[in-house]
């Protein structure tokens, strides 16, 4: 088997395991999807909260920033005592990891909305909630979407590490490949993961363009 070159190895492994690859990809997507879903909801929520309660901004942004500095593998490890081994732990860790870009971009996006526009909105009698929904969020959308895109791409990469804590996903093949010394097997996990990241990147770029209000383009 070792006489085969890396491409032949890859083809051989793919033929043998293609159904496993499909299943792992589906698990991988689920990990990314659910962790991102929670991160988007909470991240945008927290981002909005700290524009309204400026005192919290240092704590929240600082906290999310610290989360980001913890090596991903270590973060996954920290989660085990809390959530045990498996999918939940992976989702929790990935969620924490994706939080910072979303919070930060939501916060800056809203803060960067022209002060005059907000003053005019208030001066015309919009309530704080109306200012948020009709002015601040629509104008901050491009920035928020950019945060989500960054988080998603990081997330796809980091999700391969979830295999270490038994959550499955495309990381399984990579670690199996490393431990067995089969390079083709590593590619079998790495290539779909890379493709996923690229697809997500393209998807969010379009989404960003599509959600940008007409007058801002």
């Amino acid at each position, binding site marked *: 088997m070792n006489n085969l070159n890396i491409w032949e190895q890859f083809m051989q492994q793919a033929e043998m395991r293609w159904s496993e690859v499909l299943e792992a990809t589906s698990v991988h997507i689920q990990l990314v999807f659910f962790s991102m879903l929670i991160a988007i909801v909470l991240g945008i929520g927290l981002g909005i909260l700290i524009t309204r309660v400026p005192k919290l901004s240092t704590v929240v942004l600082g906290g999310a920033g610290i989360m980001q500095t913890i090596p991903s593998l270590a973060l996954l490890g920290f989660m085990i005592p809390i959530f045990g081994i498996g999918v939940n732990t992976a989702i929790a860790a990935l969620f924490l990891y994706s939080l910072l870009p979303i919070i930060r971009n939501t916060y800056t996006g809203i803060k960067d909305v022209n002060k*005059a526009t907000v003053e005019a909105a208030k001066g*015309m009698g919009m309530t704080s909630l109306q200012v948020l929904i009709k002015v601040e969020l629509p104008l901050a959308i491009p920035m928020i979407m950019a945060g989500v895109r960054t988080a998603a791409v990081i997330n796809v990469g980091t999700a391969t590490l979830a295999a270490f804590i038994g959550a499955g996903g495309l990381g399984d093949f990579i670690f199996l490949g490393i431990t067995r010394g089969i390079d083709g097997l590593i590619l079998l996990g790495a290539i779909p993961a890379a493709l996923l990241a690229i697809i997500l990147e393209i998807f969010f770029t379009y989404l960003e363009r599509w959600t940008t209000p007409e007058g801002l383009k």
Partner: protein
Amino acid sequence: MIKFEHVSKVYTDGFKAVDSVSFEVPEGEFLVLIGPSGSGKSTTMKMINRMIPHTNGTISIDGKDITKLNPSELRRNIGYVIQQIGLFPHYTIEKNIAIVPELKGWDKEKIKDRVKELLIMVDLDPEVYGSRYPKELSGGQQQRVGVARALASDPRVLLMDEPFGALDPITRDQLQDQLITLQRKLKKTIVFVTHDMDEALKLGDRIAIMKDGNLLQIDTPEKILQEPASNFVEEFIGKDRIIQNPELMPVVSVMTTRVVTSLLNLSPEKALLMMRQQKITSLIIENDLDDSFIGLISAYELIKKMNSIQSIEEILIVPEHTLTITATAKDAIMMMPSVKYGVIPVLNEAKKVVGIVTRGTLLTALSSQWTELEGINE
């Protein structure tokens, strides 16, 4: 009507932005708040719609204390125009103007009609501009939309915070003229903040001058120029202001009271002698009963026709144009070209001549103002 009673704004650090200010703005008045930066003029204006909450005293609109009203409700009934315009970049022009009517829950048809009406009112073609976005418009056009937006729900009170301050001088002038025309039609109660005295004199029914949070003087433009309440006011309005605004200069300041009068029974010879001796070119003829003005005799006419007339009545000129004592220097300047022999009599209530304006007196008065000004500038 807007009423301020001992209104102050004291910040938590103790800074008094506005210090116990009291004044009233009657319905339909155009009040201009003016002062150097940090004088509290903008703060004073923004306290009216509670964009800045006041800390002491009472502000009421039509007798209602504004702190008793819901701030959003209050603001929806007060037009608000700011220097940075603040149009929503993600809304079309139509949608921008429709903001307040939509907040107030008007129905779609009514809003559509109103938006069209307003765009026409501010000289923007609804077909061309209605569906554009703010960034596609020039600064002047954007502020016209800003004014239209503030007028959308037909509020009775309009607050304008240096609305034309960021525009180039020509556009500013156009928008000021347009605002004057609009105000003549709409009769809103307007509180307008500026630091530009020319703008204040041009627009204001009354001008309120502020400094360090205090209201120094609130008066008509004429009163402010003629009777400044303090040295600061005088300095602030500037010595050169009057000459630039002859409409604010009383006719009395450009006329001469050296008037020679006579009765109609004077003989032509004596009249000529009298004018030669007094070195004057026109003689004012009065009624012998009540000294009221009848007409005047021109020395040139008299010399020309000396030999052919029996009495001065034959060459008596009864001028079509006279000025009353309440007229302004501008009236005199405007009238001068159409006046025969260049003499305008100025009459009091009893039709008695109190003085005359000639080209000479006009020139002397205006040039003396000018040379005085030169002296100050040096």
